[in-house]
């Protein structure tokens, strides 16, 4: 049950092997890449299983929607290849274990998922959220489980995700606004890939913000600032939502600066990679990323994922760039806070 749906044939006939050729961390030519992909599929001993830093990007690079990263993760677990140490891996597994300490608001058909991130609950204030703020879920019982991809523990996802979906269903939620795009990725990419049924409608909060801002258009005071956007690893699971960033910026008068590391070429925040790939890799990513923001002439560094924000806030601030979550940026345009 819940086995990864993976179409081997798509890879056999793939002419580009983009998944590995485009990888920012593993340098392979097209032929070697193809060979390694096939090795992974066959259960062979591919170097990729050791070298992958878990940036999720190949999920976006694959033009067939064939989930190369999920496969790498499966194979790693099968072979007992750990990314982080046992202790750290277990720490994360323990940390998000449901213990009945969740929070649930006055649930309506439409609800906000704050995942297991208290900051998201704090962000959901003001005019943008006044209709839905009270209808929310928060806690490990509603945790999207995607993070275990980093730790090569898909078994935890397979075990816990159906229960999370069941928990949401039991509350009678029909539309779930995901405040963390990792949750959105979980319900629209990860769950289907494993044949786990999702019978509510996940809505990415970008889409929600966009609609709301359009409604509140008359109250927006354009910010007239330049901002660099930090694209998180999890956004690789829902690349179709990326254009909303530009749309939202447009509505609130923010110029999205051109930078080297944007779109498909985005660099992750590096902090989870510190645990799985070491500090050298993480420091390198963060240095390049922050330097690029500086080069781009951005006044603000805009975050989507609260963890990216925690990881990079101080570092960008020291370089004279103001860190801010995209929701707070929208609130600013509405004259809040």
């Amino acid at each position, binding site marked *: 049950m819940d086995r990864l749906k993976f179409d081997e044939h798509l890879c056999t006939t793939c002419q580009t092997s983009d998944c590995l050729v485009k990888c920012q961390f593993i340098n392979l030519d097209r032929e070697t890449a193809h060979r390694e992909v096939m090795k992974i599929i066959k259960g062979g001993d591919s170097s990729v299983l050791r070298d992958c830093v878990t940036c999720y990007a190949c999920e976006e690079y694959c033009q067939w929607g064939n989930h190369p990263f999920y496969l790498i993760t499966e194979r790693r677990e099968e072979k007992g290849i*750990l990314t982080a*140490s046992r202790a750290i891996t277990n720490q994360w597994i323990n940390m998000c274990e449901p213990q009945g300490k969740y929070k649930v608001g006055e649930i309506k058909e439409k609800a906000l998922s704050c995942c297991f991130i208290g900051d998201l609950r704090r962000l959901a204030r003001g005019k943008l959220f006044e209709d839905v703020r009270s209808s929310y879920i928060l806690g490990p019982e509603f945790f999207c489980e995607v993070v275990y991809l980093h730790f090569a523990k898909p078994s935890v996802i397979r075990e816990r995700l159906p229960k999370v979906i069941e928990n949401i269903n039991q509350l009678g939620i029909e539309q779930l606004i995901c405040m963390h795009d990792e949750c959105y990725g979980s319900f629209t990419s990860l769950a289907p890939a494993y044949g786990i049924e999702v019978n509510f409608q996940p809505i990415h909060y970008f889409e929600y913000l966009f609609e709301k801002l359009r409604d509140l258009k008359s109250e927006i005071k354009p910010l007239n600032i330049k901002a660099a956007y930090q694209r998180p690893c999890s956004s690789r699971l829902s690349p179709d939502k990326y254009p909303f960033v530009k749309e939202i910026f447009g509505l609130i008068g923010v110029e999205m600066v051109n930078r080297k590391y944007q779109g498909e070429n985005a660099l992750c925040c590096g902090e989870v990679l510190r645990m799985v790939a070491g500090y050298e890799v993480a420091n390198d990513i963060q240095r390049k990323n922050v330097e690029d923001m500086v080069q781009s002439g951005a006044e603000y560094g805009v975050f989507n994922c609260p963890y990216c924000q925690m990881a990079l806030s101080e570092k960008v601030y020291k370089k004279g760039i103001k860190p801010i979550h995209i929701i707070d940026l929208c609130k600013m345009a509405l004259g809040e806070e």
Partner: protein
Amino acid sequence: MRDVYNALVEIVGEEYVSFRKEELYFYARDPGLMPAHEPDYVVAPETTEEVQKIVKLANREKIPIVPMGAGMALTGLIIPLKGGIVIDMKRMRRILEVNEKARYAIVEGGTSQGALKSYLDRNYPNLRHSIPDAPPTVTIAANVVIHGQGRLTQQYGFNSDMVSGLEVVLPTGEICKIGSCSMSPSWFSKGPTLPDLSGLFLGWLGTTGIMTKVGLKLYPKKKMRDVELFVTDREDLIPEILFRLTHTEMVEDITAWFQPKPIIFQGNHHVTLYITGDTDEELEFKRKMVWDSVKEFRDNKDGGFMWILPAMKPTFLDMPQRSVTTFADVKKGGGFEYSGPIALIEKYPVLARKLVELGTKFKVAYSGMARVIGRSHAMMFGIAFTFNRADPDMMERVRKALHEGITFAFDQGGIPWKPTAEEQKMAMERMDPNTLKLMKMIKENLDPNGIMNPGNWEVN
């Protein structure tokens, strides 16, 4: 009775003497598990001369005296086992001098750790002292009397090693200067190159005199301070991890700890280590040294560094760490006590396993914490249990667990830290007879009337 009371009133003033039931009740106990015993009087002097007069009075009347700081050793060291006068030293809390260039401070016998920290933060931002994680009310004098440890113990040894001079009221009432201050206005050495007499007082648990002034070495305080947390699921690796970390000579405080709750900590051993620097470069260089020193363990997945979220950092960077104190209320009962034997770091695995065993056997909530002393020269291994003060049965189970824990630690070659009266007896039974004889000689000569904190370090 009335005569002693009147004499004490004469010395310190009526407000600062009591033999009312309320004070006797309070000063009969500490927050730990030792049985209470009431003093006859409680007195709070303000000057060395007042302390001297009290000591002389006690000699005349042959009445015991027990000097007390905040009473937070938790092992009953300030409980007046034979009654007498408890001298609460906390009114003597002035900071008398800071010599910035020679990096030492002179404080009165009741000055708290918190007050010195605050004073240095405000007036000498380049200086710090080795503050322990006990509540900030605890006093500097009491801390060195019990050979306490603190934030700089990994770098510079026991806090008592950092003493740079003493003024002591001897059990017979003489005021005595110890160290360079005995012949110089400067308080830079507690002994060397003179005969080191500080050993007559440090570690004696207030049985050989009352410290009215302490000279304490201060150390450079860097502008920045950060924390890293290395986590492993194998306790047997901890000694080697600590050996490599101390080899870097880049780290401030190092502690290794484990506890079953909250669930994030379950099953793992954690090494908290602090790095400091005046610049980002210095800090990052030290961080690199630290990460590199344990690369082998990272590579073979035996351990790794935890991501300490910004919200968690203040808890770790807090000095003293409030979370150490809040352990007391884990069972909603306001109590904890620990035995803190000093042992070789190679004993960490067996002591850790023993603590888990004790927790299960006696059904009590535990926490294990080892603070590195010197460059892995030894460790203080805290066998800590929290208890509910309203649950006598739980308190009894904790007493038994502690007893079994300290016995085991002795069997492993450890020595006691701030031992209870009973643990002192157990230690003396294991001591070399000639060592005991020397202790007895010293004690009898210094305190002929046996009035100083009797019941402690009592050689029969």
